[in-house]
């Protein structure tokens, strides 16, 4: 999703203020130049950028108004016209399959984080690959053997060659 520069600027400004306050609470180490100096310098820099961003964003919106066009809060069409609206939704938002494919990427990471220890690497990787393959329009007949082979290959590379202790999970009794 594209958001107008004025709003990005506000977010950055908010972050800068929080950063300044959090830095000022850092313990001073008995010197004038403590651990707070550098982050506070960053906060000042961010704040300057934020103000400029807000100004630029508002200018863009004003231009839209001057063209006597309507400044809509949401726009799904004007992907190229980020400056003209508060929010510009991506073109793919109406396409259910695209939204699903997009959400599946972070979801598969969360799946790995939560499941890999108890379930083990091989089953987790197999399920993860299979679901993504099928979502990206690979036929099941191809997807199943590919997912199995690739899970085994990646397991061999990292577990055998690089000695990464990937979890065995439910396959522990079969560990090789």
């Amino acid at each position: 999703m594209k958001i107008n520069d004025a709003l990005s600027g506000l977010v950055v400004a908010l972050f800068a203020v929080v950063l300044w306050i959090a830095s000022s609470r850092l313990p001073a180490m008995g010197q004038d130049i403590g651990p707070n100096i550098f982050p506070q310098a960053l906060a000042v820099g961010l704040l300057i950028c934020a103000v400029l961003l807000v100004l630029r964003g508002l200018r863009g919106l004003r231009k839209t108004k001057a063209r006597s066009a309507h400044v809509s809060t949401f726009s799904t069409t004007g992907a190229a016209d980020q400056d003209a609206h508060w929010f510009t939704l991506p073109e793919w938002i109406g396409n259910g399959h695209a939204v699903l494919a997009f959400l599946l990427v972070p979801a598969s990471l969360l799946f790995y984080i939560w499941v890999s220890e108890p379930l083990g690497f091989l089953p987790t990787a197999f399920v993860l690959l299979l679901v993504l393959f099928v979502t990206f329009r690979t036929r099941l007949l191809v997807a199943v053997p590919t997912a199995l082979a690739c899970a085994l290959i990646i397991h061999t590379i990292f577990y055998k060659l690089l000695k990464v202790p990937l979890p065995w999970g439910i396959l522990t009794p079969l560990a090789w």
Partner: protein
Amino acid sequence: MFANIYAAFGMVFDPYVLAVILGSSIFGLFMGAVPGLSATMAVALLVPVTFFMPPVPAIAAMVSATAMAIFSGDIPGCLLRIPGTPSSAAYTDEAYAMTMKGQGEIALGASLVFSVIGGLFGTLVLILAAPALAELALKFSSFEYFWLVLLGLTCAIFIASDNPLKGFVSLFLGMFIASIGMGNPAGAPRFTFDQPDLLGGVSLVPLMVGMFAMSEVLRFAVSRDFSMKVAESRVGNVFKGMWGLMLKYPKSVLRGSVLGTLVGALPGAGADIAAWMSYAMSKKLSKEPEKFGTGHPEGIVESGAANNSALAGAWIPALVFGIPGDSITAIVIGVLYMKNLNPGPMIFVENPVSMYAIFIVFILANLLMLPLGFWCIKMAKRILSIPRGILMPLILLFCIVGSYATNNSVTDVGIMLVFGLLAYVMEENGFPVAPAVLGVVLGGMLEEHFVTSMIKADGQFLAFFERPIAGTLGVITLLLWLLPLALKLLRRKTLATA
């Protein structure tokens, strides 16, 4: 010195190192040839693997993979009109036009041969310039380094992004990420939210894998093109006629190589910008500029040499000052630190053998590009017919395992998730990602030099300008910052009076 060079040859021509070079070359060729997978991504994916290697093979893997990827990015440009990496985008239309005219063979051959020549030229400059610069840099104090880092970052933003304001936001964000943890001069835990995992700072590997690889998978997921169609073309002997091109355009070859090396050595500007600038220059100075865009090899010769020489050029500031010349060397610098090969002028005093070994790897990788590149061109059709719907999930799994492998903890997978999403949102809104990564890599260094200098100067900021070199660098940096503002004000004034 000769004993060192001899030892370096021994290090490189070791069966294990040679196998690593061959393997990562093939990996690099593949990554470059598949559109959507870039040289930077190839390096990011190599980081977790090199984590388990000694320093020389680890660096060798990155050098050979990137050199190959920058060349092989030309192949889909030629056959599909889709650049394989951003560095080939400048002359994709030209190369495709040649293929359409039935001269695809010449376009591919020129890409390959002049990539090799450009790469070798950049390597030569690296070998000659880096030790000499290091000699000079030995005299630098924290004041000079402070300005040098700041100047480097400034250049990075002004050259590499069309929107400097957003570039600065990105850079500051990166430096904030660098300040997380206890790795600051005072040793105080900062912004860790009492998480013990964050005390050592944000791990670099999952951050880079997330920002450069996972964000790409996200972009693919919504791109809707799961397979591609390759143009029909026959490719025979691609080396035919290359000597003729060399004799016809000797100036272009030299100009491309020199410009590429220089642009590469400038912090923040890498192979892609070198190629664009070089293509534009070639057209401007050519005797037949009207032929450009219609399938004319001159521009391909010049910018093909430029993007490969930029690769080696970027290593000059990376090795001598620890300041990355592009996003690839930003990752490399992170790896150098992990391998206790801290970049800086002392690296040439402390580790001369490793340095010579890196130089030898550069030469070897560029020479290896001739046979491997030829083979890759022959295989191109098969590589391009692998469906991306299969490739992208595999890359995602590789990212996950790679992030996990650095600390054997799923926390790092979480870090990768956070930074992958962040990078995606940033790029969607026009905030460039490269300055953020530069900020992460250089933030710690900038703070250290800043704090040391401030303590030395007793809080007097003017001391930053008292030494001659530091003063000069400082004035240049400030000028670069103020110039755009001054120009804007001037323009407004002339508008008001007019």
